[in-house]
């Protein structure tokens, strides 16, 4: 089974986010970058599938050289090989076009993405990729079982879940549930050593078009000072919720 896990290189979840002074981009100063958490669930699922069905797990990212430590980490966690599409991701259309072109040259059975990246939160790439490859797609996927060519998936819907079946190859956009938090693997020393000798290849872009153009970034407005209320005066809280905030 050939498994591809698409990875975004994103600021760590604990990062304080700020933007450069003209608002054109993220201020990367002092920001730690990690594997996008949704993709980490997907990577672990890929390793589980390899343990069960045999085959290889490849990881891929669209990014410049600064994304390579993230790919090396994925190799240290257990992926067999890594691919970097050499460029900068601009929007879902361009990113999915680049990844689709790579997949067409390399053929995979299972393509696992995270349901969104925690930086731009677009959530466009997985579905766009599936449509470009003309493959079935399951978003917010929390379970994936493969038996021969048959796939059974569960996706989260608003206030519930839905089971569906499809045939390989398939594209899924995963999240927690695909594997559990305690299944996630921390690279050990041996993993880190072997990751250095695993293949990491760099591919040039096909120069696809960007359709949604980022203009500028800003910070959300600051909250005003909190009003502390005595636990013995809950009537006051109810009054404020009613009269001041008008939410009840």
């Amino acid at each position: 089974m050939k498994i591809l896990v698409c990875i975004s290189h994103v600021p760590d979840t604990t990062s304080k986010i700020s933007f450069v002074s003209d608002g054109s981009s993220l201020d990367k100063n002092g920001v730690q970058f990690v594997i996008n958490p949704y993709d980490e669930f997907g990577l672990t699922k890929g390793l589980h599938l390899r343990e069960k069905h045999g085959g290889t797990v490849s990881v891929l990212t669209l990014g410049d050289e600064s994304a390579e430590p993230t790919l090396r980490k994925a190799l240290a966690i257990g992926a067999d090989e890594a691919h970097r599409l050499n460029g900068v991701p601009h929007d879902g259309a361009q990113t999915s076009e680049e990844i689709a072109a790579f997949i067409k040259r390399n053929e995979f059975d299972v393509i696992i993405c995270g349901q969104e990246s925690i930086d731009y939160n677009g959530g466009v790439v997985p579905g766009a990729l599936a449509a470009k490859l003309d493959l079935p797609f399951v978003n917010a996927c929390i379970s994936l079982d493969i038996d021969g060519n048959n796939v059974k998936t569960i996706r989260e819907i608003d206030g519930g879940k839905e089971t569906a079946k499809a045939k390989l190859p398939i594209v899924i956009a995963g999240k927690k549930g695909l594997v559990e938090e305690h299944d996630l693997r921390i690279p050990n020393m041996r993993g880190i050593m072997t990751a250095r000798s695993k293949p990491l290849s760099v591919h040039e872009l096909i120069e696809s078009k960007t359709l949604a153009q980022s203009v500028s970034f800003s910070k959300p407005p600051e909250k005003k000072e909190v009003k502390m209320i005595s636990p013995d005066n809950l009537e006051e809280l109810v009054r404020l919720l009613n009269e001041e905030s008008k939410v009840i």
Partner: protein
Amino acid sequence: MVIIYAETWENEFKKTTFEAISYGSKCAQEMGVESIAVVFGNSVNPIGELGKYGVNKVIHVQEIDEFEPYSIALALSDITKELNGKLLVLNGTANGKSLIGILSSLINAAAISNVTSFPINHKPLTVMRSAFSSKGIEQVSSNSDCTILSLVPNALGIISNGDSNPSVVLKKIDSNHKTSILQSEKESGEIPLPEAERVVSAGRGLKGPENWNIITDLAKVLNAGTACSKPVSDIGWRPHSEHVGQTGIQINPELYIAIGISGAIQHLAGVSRSKTIVVINNDPEAPFFKAADYGIVGDAFDVVPRLTETLKSFKK
């Protein structure tokens, strides 16, 4: 033309659908074109009520009666292309999120998700969106002839002063699916978190799953959805589907009440768009108080049941 996906659940329109129709119809007015809602399923009723939200016309596709993403996306893409749609509006619901990427490729259109503003410009179409898990706001412009927007639920409101009596046109499009749905389960009686107007949430401060009745009682009197912090879902006290935060569900309610949650930055990322935040915590140093509108330092097991009672007598 502005095309709007009028999402339904169990043959009824969702509240977020009225938001999308209001949004799309207002945009259509600004652009000087018609707005057209697309409805799927054979027993949706009453379709005419969409006129209240300003829509000019409804296309009803009866043959496609279940949500299979490719099938719905292909139908929406065919309709958008046929009518030369310039704007396609979706809800940022689970189904909307399943569609946006597929549609972007099928129509070759810019896809902008998490939209939090009406267009600030139409040429090129420019909107604000939430990014970096609500830690940032991004201004984005479209470079393509047609643009797909998906809206943050609860963010843009409903405009219900329309009095149009939209014409309803049946259109036959056969289902063209790539996955087959075997079973749908909805957890009964629950308010889906992304569209909930009020949410009551608790963390490890509750000490164990057996204590959750004080949370559900408070939620009930407020007609609120229930949620939890990441640690609580990780240790299995509550289901994953209740986890709000950066890697869980991002919510946008009018009122968010956080009980026994310290307020880690990852939690705040998922809830900071809430209009009013109440924090109840026995630790006066809990960082969540800095992000709150109202704070109470106190023991949850004492404060929460009394708050429920106070709200009950207020409602009388």
